[in-house]
């Protein structure tokens, strides 16, 4: 498996997203320009210029026409994927951390950070069919959780919103009323900041990664803890294979703790675990810094990782990957 090294970002990567067909890969980084790449050979296709701060998260619509990006410049922008033109900008008074399109792409969840006395929020905005009609009104605003909300995503049928963040608790909200429906158990749940959350394609279960050096698999409907994957490093990024019963978990020591003597000290590998047996399958080395973002191609035959080192590494699996027997 020879990775394709995609150089283009000048600052650490923050997020990676494939479109539904799996032919495009969208990357966000702390430099201000989200970038789109060919997911097959890693050629750079274009950039989306307009943000004035680190871009934390993005999502692409079902038909790959619309892109939404959330940035530390306190705005969430809507783009035309093909031309790279900015269609609309939602402005906030604090940095936007995560964005997620609903099924049908008519709604988007945006989370904003606590900032200058403002608490963190989860907001739902309606996306107009014609960008001309777009308004910045929120359909729903949820406040409550302490600290940053690192990720909020839609549950099945857009009925629920699942959020996770610095207070290490996963919450399920009613997307109509904003009522809190469920909270994860403090004992069995994460003990430190939840850094990432990845929904399985059919939205039946999701994976969370945390600074407590573990990743956990949860049932989306009941919020029961299904599996725990124990790591020896803080987890920054997680992804679930759509094809095999595998999960990939990445992370590494925080920059302040990294010893300068050796690359191995930081454990900047992407680790594969068997989703059901919770056993480690293997690791993919290469990054020079912690892994901040991971994504599987929807066909499950390749995955990409984005690191603090500013590189995106695109890996196409070897044939023997598909014949791993546990």
């Amino acid at each position, binding site marked *: 498996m020879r990775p394709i090294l995609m150089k283009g970002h000048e600052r650490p990567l923050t997020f990676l997203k494939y479109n*539904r*067909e799996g032919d495009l890969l969208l990357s966000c980084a702390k430099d201000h320009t989200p970038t789109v790449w060919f997911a097959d050979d890693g050629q750079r296709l274009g950039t989306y210029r307009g943000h004035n701060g680190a871009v934390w998260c993005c999502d692409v619509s*079902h038909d790959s026409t619309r892109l939404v990006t959330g940035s530390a410049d306190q705005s969430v922008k809507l783009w035309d994927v093909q031309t790279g033109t900015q269609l609309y900008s939602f402005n906030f008074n604090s940095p936007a951390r995560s964005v997620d399109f*609903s*099924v*049908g792409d*008519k709604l988007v969840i945006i989370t904003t950070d606590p900032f200058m006395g403002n608490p963190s929020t989860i907001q739902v905005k309606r996306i107009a069919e014609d960008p001309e009609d777009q308004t910045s009104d929120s359909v729903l605003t949820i406040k409550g959780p302490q600290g940053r909300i690192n990720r909020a995503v839609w549950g*099945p*049928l*857009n009925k629920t919103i699942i959020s996770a963040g610095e207070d290490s608790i996963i919450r399920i909200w009613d997307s109509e009323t904003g009522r809190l429906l469920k909270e994860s158990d403090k004992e069995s749940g994460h003990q430190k900041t939840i850094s990432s959350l990845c929904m399985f*394609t*059919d939205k*039946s*279960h999701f994976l969370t990664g945390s600074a407590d050096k573990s990743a956990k698999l949860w*049932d989306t*409907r009941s919020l029961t803890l*299904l599996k725990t994957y124990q790591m*020896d490093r803080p987890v920054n990024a997680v992804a679930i294979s759509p094809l095999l*019963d595998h999960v990939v978990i990445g992370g590494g*020591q925080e920059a302040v*703790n990294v*010893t300068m*003597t*050796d690359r*191995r*000290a930081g454990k900047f590998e992407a680790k594969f675990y068997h989703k*059901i*047996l*919770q056993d480690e399958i293997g690791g993919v080395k290469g990054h020079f810094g912690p892994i901040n973002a991971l994504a599987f191609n929807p*066909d499950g035959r390749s995955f990409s990782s984005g690191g603090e080192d500013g590189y995106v590494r695109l890996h196409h699996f070897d044939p023997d990957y598909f014949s791993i027997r*546990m």
Partner: protein
Amino acid sequence: MAAAAVLSMSEIENKAMNLGIDLSTIVFDNVVLPPGDDFGITSDDEDILHEEVAPEFETGYGNVIVVDNLPVVSPEKFAKLEGVIRKIYSQTGVIKEGGLWMPVNPDTNMTLGYCFIEFNTAQEAKEAKEKTDGYKLDKSHIFIVDMFDDIERYMNVPEEWTPAEIKPYEAGDHLQHWLTDEKARDQFVIRAGIVTEIFWNDARQLRPDPVYQYQYWIDNFVQWSPLGTYLATVHRQGAIVWGGKSTFNHIHRFPHNQVKHIDFSPGERFLVTYSSQEPSNPRDTHRVVLNIFDLRTGKLMRDFKGSVDDFTTGGSGGLSGISWPIFKWGGGNEDKYFARIGKNAIYVYETETFILVDKKSYKVDNVGDFSWSPTDSILALFVLELGGGNQPARVSLVQMPGKVELRQKNLFSVSDCKMYWQSNGEYLAVKVDRYTKTKKSTYTGFELFRIKERDIPIEVLELDNKNDKIIAFAWEPKGHRFAVIHGDGPRPDVSFYSMKTGGITARVSKLTTLKAKQANALYWSPAGRFIVLAGLKGFNGQLEFYNVDDLETMATGEHFMCTDIEWDPTGRYVATAVTLVHVMENGFHIWSFNGKLLYRIPKDHFFQFQWRPHPQSLLSSEKEEEISRNLRKYSKKYEAEDQDVSLALSEQNRKKRRVLQEEWETWTARWKQYHEEERELRLQLRDGEPSDDEGSQEQYEAKEVEAEEVLDVHEEIVD
């Protein structure tokens, strides 16, 4: 704390049931026992409280001493005697104004032969008592000094002697029970975070098997006794020694406030505890206290108090602070002697009486270092050069008792010496650093003493390149070989030497040299033959498992950032650990003797790993030889067991996997069902667009279309 001594919870529940009390309605924290009555329930922490320093008696006479056995004098000589006393006691402290009172018999006008002295502070009074008790004024007048507060206590001593109550004999716990483990496993203790745990090393199951665990157990550290019988935990108030069959129970407490270090005697007869009090005022002396306890009775045998300077003199290093252990034990496992080094003298004490051997210190001018033979009562001394090289440095071997010099060797232009005993006391290697002629650099050689041979022959060994720096030296335990890491470059060499080559008059000879190794530490297996060449610190934890019999490398490995390495007492396993010296990677790995990684356990805030030592084998050397000759016969049984275990393990594993798989399938079945049910609704959300994530992937065909699109046209005039 001690679970075994207290009623178990189930017993309490039963009792409550009998009395018709609902336990759940009682808040135990609110229960107050009448003072002085504990209903036979020993409190968890009460006995610790008792061991806090006894409160000082506030009689107000703490600063008064009574000096007895003074001469009885007439009024004419009264002033003279008073002057003498005042002179003696002014040296130790400030006597209060009018604080010296010598009572006079009103009938005879003669003094009564005693006086009272009041000092400014109780501390001074105590010091005066210590210093002048037994002071010889003249032949017939030897002072007897007591604290005034003590007099009353002495008055209350009953006249009649009542025999001490003899407690019925209670069979003690089987302290060596762990040695009888059916699977012949070994134990180890680890300390990580606030938790201290003891495990069996279950190498067959490839995991540690917990024995005992306690949270908030230790304030400072834990330590096994040298034969593994006890586990000592060191707290602020003192050391506690634990042991027992299945759980770890208190054996004894050894109160010693602010204890910093402890040390067991090699035969487990005594425990030495040490504390030092940093003075708050830099002009005050830095005082240290050493206590020696009898381990089995818990009795304090002797204490040593003094300023830290008394205990740091001598030694090669001019470092501030002490080098632990201060007392080195001699006489093998019988713990006959202990000794410490002082200025121009070695203080050797006997454990029979706890006083100096021959009642005086052993004067050795300019002594720099000393060590005991691990098995015999032989002291090895290193004496530094005297008089600017007029009197050469020397190493001498001295037999105790009697202080007979067995052997001596003079050494010239020595900069430093280090002594290494072989574990059976058969050989002593002295590493000598000498100055070159220019005195600008040093080179190293070895003096090898054969202790058990007639006249103790000495051989001089120099390395092939005598300018090589010696990085590490280690004797093979119970063996006749040693290993040296030497070299100057980033990749030093490792050489092995044998003391047993060349027929009857044995000579030392080199076995082999391994070139350019990433190693800076040597760890012999306690059974000999195998050695781990380890590259700690700068080498990032490189490990090489080497067989010295066959002179071949068995395996190489790495435990990244490894800080500590320890063989288990049988030489079957090696533990490598990363302790809190590094912030990251904390935890330990267990390897087989031949370098196979068996399992690894990550632990955050990992402080300590220690194998439980073994007492000496009871087998005679003939028996051991017989076993090793017929190893095949003996090993058969264990091999069969090994196989059974591994079969059972894989069976267990298979079962577990099947269960997990089945569980998962029930979940996915339910999810699929939900997904089907919601299909219609999803289609609605997508405005009837059929392409959901399901089943539509094969329907599209990839076509390559080349399209050109003009985004922008610029016209620029080029001049």
